[in-house]
């Protein structure tokens, strides 16, 4: 029993060291780990709770982009009231920034009527991103790609999941924390803006699997293997914008992709693997054995056909041009089905890239032209935003165009 607890402690330490805690925090975590190992069960009670873990709000970049994805998310798009001008936007973003800075530290926001719900940040991040309408009101020059995506033939877009002036991405490992932060931010935004849409998503709960494990979508597929890794030069190049007020910020694409679990059920394992070009069991390309093996698109089978079919998702989505890369940070959704249906499920596709037109659109065009996976997936929502850079203490998100 003691050994088991020690093992748990070690697992937690690994996570803390790899995640939000560094410096003094890491030393403390090691100390606690050693105590657990030494004293066994008694000390387990002093193991830090994940609810206490925080992700710094302030910095060159906003948190919630290169942050290891938390278990729960609320994506909320707001429409600005007609009367809100540049000065109003400044007041709005100052207030929301202060709320976010406090809540992500595990402190109540000013005028928080439920401060008891703020004490467990559980790696809470709040990420703000501006839609074209908001940027227009500031008088700033918007990046050329900040506009609705071009229409794709596979799209069946519903207006209730599209566009918006201001995006809040609120994510934490605890759904109560997310709900409280969302409520607080929406109350403080009420004088300036109203919710246009809310989309909630989830991944595996915290502690269910090792941090860094690629998520699986509700088709069972390993989803996001090709992502650049935060902290690498490749990630920085893909994600962070380098021009104008958006330096240190990024472009955000949100797509709601309905997944037809009923027709997917018709497909047996070989068919599923062919549609994706990867093995559902391991996520490995059909030419490899490990999830992170590079797909070999030239490999052919005994009768000369490509091992990874030309129509497969991995073949169609993989760019030949290295500039066409994106960073995906999506979530599953699974909501109340319509009468007579078993499920209303899918993927909240969220991608970050410095230039949406240069990086995202070419990939989506190829998938629009041909991707067997389109048989079972349908984009039903679409929105594009620009996430400004982060801010220092005392500053606010968006100050580059609002102050």
């Amino acid at each position, binding site marked *: 029993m003691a050994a088991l607890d020690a093992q748990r402690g070690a697992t937690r330490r690994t996570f803390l060291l790899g995640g939000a805690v560094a410096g003094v925090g890491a030393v403390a975590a090691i100390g606690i780990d050693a105590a657990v190992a030494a004293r066994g069960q008694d000390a387990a009670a002093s193991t830090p709770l994940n609810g206490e873990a925080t992700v710094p709000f302030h910095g060159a970049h906003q948190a919630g982009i290169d942050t290891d994805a938390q278990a729960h998310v609320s994506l909320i798009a707001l429409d600005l009231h007609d009367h809100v001008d540049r000065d*109003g936007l*400044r*007041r*709005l973003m*100052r*207030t929301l*920034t*202060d709320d976010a*800075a*406090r809540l992500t530290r595990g*402190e109540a926001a*000013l*005028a928080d*009527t439920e401060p008891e719900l703020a004490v467990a940040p559980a790696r809470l991040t709040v990420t703000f991103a501006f839609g074209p309408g908001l940027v227009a009101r500031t008088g700033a020059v918007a990046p050329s790609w900040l506009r609705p995506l071009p229409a794709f033939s596979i799209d069946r877009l519903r207006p209730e999941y599209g566009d918006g002036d201001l995006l809040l991405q609120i994510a934490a490992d605890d759904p109560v924390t997310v709900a409280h932060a969302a409520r607080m931010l929406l*109350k*403080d935004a*009420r*004088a*300036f803006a109203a919710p246009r849409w809310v989309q909630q998503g989830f991944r595996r709960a915290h502690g269910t699997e090792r941090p860094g494990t690629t998520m699986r979508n509700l088709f069972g597929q390993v989803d996001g293997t090709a992502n650049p890794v935060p902290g690498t030069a490749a990630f920085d190049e893909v994600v962070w914008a380098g021009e104008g007020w958006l330096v240190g910020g990024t472009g955000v694409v949100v797509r709601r992709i309905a997944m037809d679990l009923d027709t997917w059920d018709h497909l047996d394992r070989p068919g599923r693997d062919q549609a994706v070009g990867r093995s559902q069991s391991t996520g490995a390309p059909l030419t490899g054995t490990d999830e992170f093996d590079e797909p070999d698109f030239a490999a052919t089978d005994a009768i000369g056909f490509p091992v990874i079919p030309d129509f497969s998702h991995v073949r169609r989505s993989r760019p030949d041009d290295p500039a066409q890369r994106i960073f995906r940070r999506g979530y599953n959704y699974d909501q109340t089905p319509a009468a007579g249906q078993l499920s209303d499920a899918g993927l909240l596709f969220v991608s970050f890239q410095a230039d949406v037109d240069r990086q995202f659109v070419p990939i989506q065009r190829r998938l629009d032209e041909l991707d067997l996976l389109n048989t079972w997936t349908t984009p039903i929502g679409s929105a594009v935003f620009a996430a400004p850079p982060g801010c220092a*203490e*005392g500053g606010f998100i968006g100050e580059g165009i609002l102050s």
Partner: protein
Amino acid sequence: MTLRTLRFGALALVAVLALPGCAGGTAPAPAAESTSFVSSDVWVKAADGGMSAGFGELSNTGDTDLTVVSATSPATSSMQLHETVPNEAGQMVMREVEGGFVIPAHGSVELAPGGNHLMFMDVTSPLRAGDETTITLTFSDSSTAEIAAPIKEFAGANENYDGGAGESGSAGDTDMGH
């Protein structure tokens, strides 16, 4: 003097009000800034006009009690120090506190919706959410403190105002804020 920075955004600074007198003679001495007062998380409820209120934590780092006897803000023609108490009907009403807010030595007083608060009696320039306003407190020793308070939209803090002590009349029932 010491500037105590508490938390980003939340902070209220004890500002420099008193400058060493440069004109000798008959002019009344300018109010000295309190050296033992610290505030934190002070905020004011947004209002276009009428009444509003300010809340937060007032602390005393000194060895003797500190008594807030009055408050002013450029946003209102007058301010009062209020407490919230039950009236004879058992209804919670707010009224001017007698003797001011006493902040005990090395202690603090919490001003909160439904409790003690700094009452803006007549908002003359709109308190707009996301802006800041200034509250100047005066203590019984004539020292003062200036607080920068963020303005927040807030649905609560709608206590009835019992304007005259002992009155049970219609002078009250003023919905604070809007």
